[in-house]
């Protein structure tokens, strides 16, 4: 089969590799009908994950048809149309039972490598390096799905892939970010990053009762989507002297009730802090650039909530902890408990309450992955989200 492989720093290749097989009796094999490139794939592309190996198959947003199941798979059937969550969960451990699937204790065979590298035994992820299990990803024609009775969500025929694909990651991620805001009716939420996750968070916040959503970004077409498709007010930080002050102006001087950092460790910014972060990151003195998070903390109203779906990987610097403490902020963050949110969000999609297809800017063949990664990374050609279609066999 064809698969998108990591070949080194900003180097992606499409290779012919053996088809995946059932390895454990709880596995299934899915023939991929659609797969997307996630913003977090760009962290791998840009070399921020030391546990990537050349030849690793990428991709954690995918859906398709079940073509084979192991002898112990009970719920899933061959022929089922499924969306597969990006994180891998066993369904039986302490955390899975609490629906905290992203903390699954059993799905990562290399959990102790994760513990050594990042300080905790993280759960397995598709296509996201050996510290997260080394599982081959879904940017391929076929993918092996472990714990097949736990993750894949069976979806009905007759609804296009484009409406369902994002149940695998960014829609639940945006939704959990909004839920983490503890929104009350009439609340105002500011969202840093109008990329796919930020836009999903903006939509979800309104679904959960927010009255006003303010999106902050510098990419005009993303701000346009926030404005036209998510009914958000927008701030272009590149055209703004002081983002924090601008947000306070928009909120009567007090600040939003909740703030969402949908940017994470590769934030772009302006000014001295941006230069400081880039320098420290280049010198490996800090692993992450927390520009967006700093602004979010400074902008949030006293007693408000800071929700962080943006990915952080390691150590950050110059956190305005005094401001967070003084204002009594609540922080909620973390990898999405995708499995928990998928059925609910499928209902919203089927009811026509959420249609995430507007974020797709590019529909390409799997073969075109190297160009797609480059365009998405450089935000060329108004690239907000790429969906790849494996070439039919």
């Amino acid at each position: 089969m064809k698969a998108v492989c990591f070949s080194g720093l900003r180097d992606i290749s499409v290779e012919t590799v053996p088809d995946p097989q059932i390895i454990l009796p709880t596995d299934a094999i899915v023939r991929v009908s659609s797969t997307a490139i996630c913003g977090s794939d760009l962290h791998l592309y840009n070399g921020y994950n030391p546990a990537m190996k050349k030849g690793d198959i990428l991709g954690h947003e995918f859906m398709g048809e079940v073509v084979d199941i192991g002898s112990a798979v009970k719920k899933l059937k061959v022929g089922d149309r499924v969306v597969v969550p990006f994180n891998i969960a066993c369904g039986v451990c302490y955390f899975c039972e609490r629906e905290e699937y992203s903390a699954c204790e059993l799905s990562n065979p290399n959990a102790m490598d994760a513990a050594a590298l990042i300080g905790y035994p993280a759960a397995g992820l598709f296509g996201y390096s050996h510290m997260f299990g080394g599982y081959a990803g879904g940017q391929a024609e076929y993918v092996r799905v472990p714990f097949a009775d736990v993750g894949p969500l069976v979806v009905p025929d007759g609804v296009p892939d484009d409406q369902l694909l994002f149940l695998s990651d960014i829609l639940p991620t945006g939704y959990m970010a909004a839920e983490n805001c503890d929104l009350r009716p009439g609340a105002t939420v500011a969202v840093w990053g109008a990329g796919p996750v930020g836009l999903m968070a903006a939509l979800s916040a309104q679904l959960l009762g927010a009255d006003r959503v303010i999106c902050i970004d510098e990419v005009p077409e993303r701000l346009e989507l926030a404005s036209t498709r998510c009914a958000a007010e927008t701030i272009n930080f590149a055209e703004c002297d002081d983002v924090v002050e601008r947000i306070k102006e928009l909120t009567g001087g007090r600040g939003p009730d909740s703030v969402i950092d949908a940017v994470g460790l590769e934030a772009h910014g302006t000014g001295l802090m941006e230069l400081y972060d880039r320098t420290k990151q280049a010198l490996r003195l800090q692993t992450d650039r927390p520009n967006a998070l700093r602004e979010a903390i400074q902008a949030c109203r006293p007693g408000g909530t800071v929700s962080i779906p943006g990915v952080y990987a390691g150590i950050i610097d110059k956190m305005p902890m005094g401001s967070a403490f003084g204002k009594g902020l609540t922080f909620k963050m973390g990898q999405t408990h995708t499995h928990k949110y998928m059925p609910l969000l499928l209902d919203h999609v089927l009811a026509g309450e959420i249609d995430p297809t507007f974020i797709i800017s590019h529909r390409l063949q799997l073969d075109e992955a190297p160009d797609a990664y480059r365009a998405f990374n450089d935000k060329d050609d108004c690239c907000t989200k790429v969906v790849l279609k494996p070439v039919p066999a």
Partner: protein
Amino acid sequence: MAQDIQDSRGVRVVSTAITVRRPQQDVYEAWRKLSELPRFMQHVESVTEDGEQSHWVVNAPGGSVEWDAEITADIPGSVIRWQSVGDADVPHRGEIRFEPSRQGSGTEIFVTVGYRPPGGRLGIGIAKLMGQGPGRQMDIDLHRFKQLMEFGSIATTHGQPRGAAQHEDWKDEQQESEREISNPHVEGVPA
């Protein structure tokens, strides 16, 4: 994660803990069947029980390491202590203790091993075998034990496709030969 300290007499003491969601007695019994330990201990080739004693064969770079051990205390459901006997390559003693979990159901397992680090070629071989230290290997093996007890099999990617450029710079041996490992005693998950 494991702690690794050296005491004033040159004995290294490694300790760690893990919680397994199975009753104390089940967890104890799984450990007490010494011949079954290689199912989750990555580098242990075999353990042969002979009365009070057991014979251990461990794969190490450049050959295998062997020793005899005896159980010095055995309180069903709560503790097993052992020590190496005779002319062991790595003289050591250890304890594994089982207590009810204080976070819901299950068993907290505490392992402590004291050993004298060997020198020479053997020492180098064992050091390589243990990667970044015996504590880390202990954590890996306990995590594998936990998977076997809670789910019935050990998660693996061994045998999955990968691109041609795959370098062997990551420890692939970690996942070798474990695709058949499963626990027939866990309900609902056939071997």
